[in-house]
């Protein structure tokens, strides 16, 4: 079995199963946690609470104006990183092919050059965010192994993807295998670290907005 065949076959299957099991484990664990009973009567009807949850998902994506000067660099870099990842994942032809293979859904792709530019910007944002984390006194204290491991596991697929698009350092097959392995490492770690925010971030914001709306607070 070649390296590529292993990466595309058993390794991908194992990584997928671990990721699915891990994500459902985390979600079930969080959803079934004991919660405080709300004794007070709700101040808003259910539909308004839902709307409050949906609104918070959006409003918490942009910081409040008075915070902006302090968080501008971090938030901007975060936007570049996440938009870049979105473009790479959902507009790159090979990635659309994988999604099509799994779900049957397909849509037009962007040219390879555009994806490479998006990858380069994403990689630059990642590096800048790491530099910020290492130099910011509070962030550095707050950071743990999870942060750095998660950073590395996002960095590797993007960098191997750029190498793969250039096809210069090694053969296409080797680079593709390395790229797939790096994605598999990311998939395996995803449910168990901070990368789980992929699944939790909107649910968390939504729940918070829902509770705020229930109390009649601004969302």
């Amino acid at each position, binding site marked *: 079995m070649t390296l590529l065949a292993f990466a*595309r076959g058993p390794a991908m299957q194992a990584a997928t199963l671990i990721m699915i099991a891990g994500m459902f484990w985390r979600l079930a664990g969080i959803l079934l946690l004991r919660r405080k009973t709300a004794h007070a009567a709700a101040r808003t009807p259910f539909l308004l609470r839902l709307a409050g949850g949906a609104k918070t998902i959006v409003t918490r994506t942009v910081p409040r104006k008075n915070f902006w000067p302090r968080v501008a660099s971090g938030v901007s870099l975060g936007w570049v990183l996440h938009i870049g990842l979105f473009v790479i994942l959902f507009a790159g032809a090979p990635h659309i*092919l994988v999604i099509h293979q799994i779900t049957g859904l397909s849509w037009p792709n962007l040219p390879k050059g555009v994806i490479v530019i998006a990858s380069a910007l994403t990689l630059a944002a990642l590096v800048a965010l790491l530099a910020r984390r290492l130099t910011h006194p509070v962030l550095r204290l707050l950071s743990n192994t999870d942060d750095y491991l998660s950073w590395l596991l996002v960095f590797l697929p993007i960098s191997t993807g750029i190498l793969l698009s250039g096809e210069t350092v090694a053969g296409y097959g080797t680079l593709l295998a390395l790229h797939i392995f790096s994605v598999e490492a990311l998939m395996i770690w995803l449910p168990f670290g901070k990368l789980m925010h992929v699944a939790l971030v909107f649910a968390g914001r939504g729940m918070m907005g829902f509770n705020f709306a229930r109390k009649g607070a601004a969302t």
Partner: protein
Amino acid sequence: MSDQTAAPDQENLGAMLARRGFGRRSLLKFAIVMTSSLALPPSLAPVMADNLAKAKRQSVIWLSFQECTGCLETLLRSSAPTIDSLIFDFISLDYQESLMASAGAAAEHTLRQAVAANKGEYLLAIDGSVPVKDGGVYSLTGGRSNVSMLEEFAGSAKAILAIGTCAAYGGIPKAHPNPTGAVGVEDIISGKPIVNIPGCPPVPEVLSGVLVYFVSFGKLPDLDDRKRPLAYFGTTIHDQCYRRPFYDQGKFAKSFDDEGARQGWCLFELGCKGPTTHNACASLKWNNGTSFPIESGHGCIGCSEPDFWDQGSFYTSLAGSSATGWRNAGIAAAVGLAGGAAAALSARSKTPTIPEDKS
């Protein structure tokens, strides 16, 4: 095809070509093409032409093992009678079971005679894989197993040419479940120069290039890490493909009869294995340079790579994977849910109530 062993006083290639109406200019033109094909400096062309003109007939003993004869068919039907094909005429093919007139004991005698007359000097050409399971009983010639013949005749060969993917890596006979225990030549022979010329079938001009190089310079050409001639296998089909610009532009045919296919867009999404396949199809092409599979509208199936038959569907793109099925995903989700629920319930049992804030 010669049924006789090579004699030392045979005419050289220059004399033979002259007798057939090819002058030195023709030989020089041919040498220029070959040096280009072999990625040699142009300055070597006159040297190659002179060496070829002086060259004596090179003895080649060709053994066919577990094969379909497709490789031989391709080489025989490679092109119109050019100097290229005369190179094939020029070599002394002292033994080839499918082509030689003799059979049975006479053929065996011919083989022994050829080996004895050219000991240490002949090229041993192999097509077909070598079955080793159960003592190699799955492919016999004259009651002898392929592996036994290979071990004997490789010993006194100057070098071995493994022609076709079967001889090079085991090929289709080696495909899962490999009932005969098929392997390639290099899995059995060590300590002897081996040139792999994979392909199902191999590009005939690659074999002629290797032979010309060997006859001209008395040594084998540079090889890559899989013992393939670097000049022909140094790049991938993808790198040489005329559809490559469409790959870079992100223009892919989605089916074999859509607008993209008619426009000649890249066949990557239709399963083309060009990016991972090393061969000379895209540059040398087939049928006298007419076309190659991608030019005919079908993706490369990667036939010159090891285990190509076991790499999944020819029509699944390299970007895809043999991802787990929905059933396995469902089982994984159920396991995760059960584990998470158990963990949460365990946590709940340890904290029966959440104390109210005192503030």
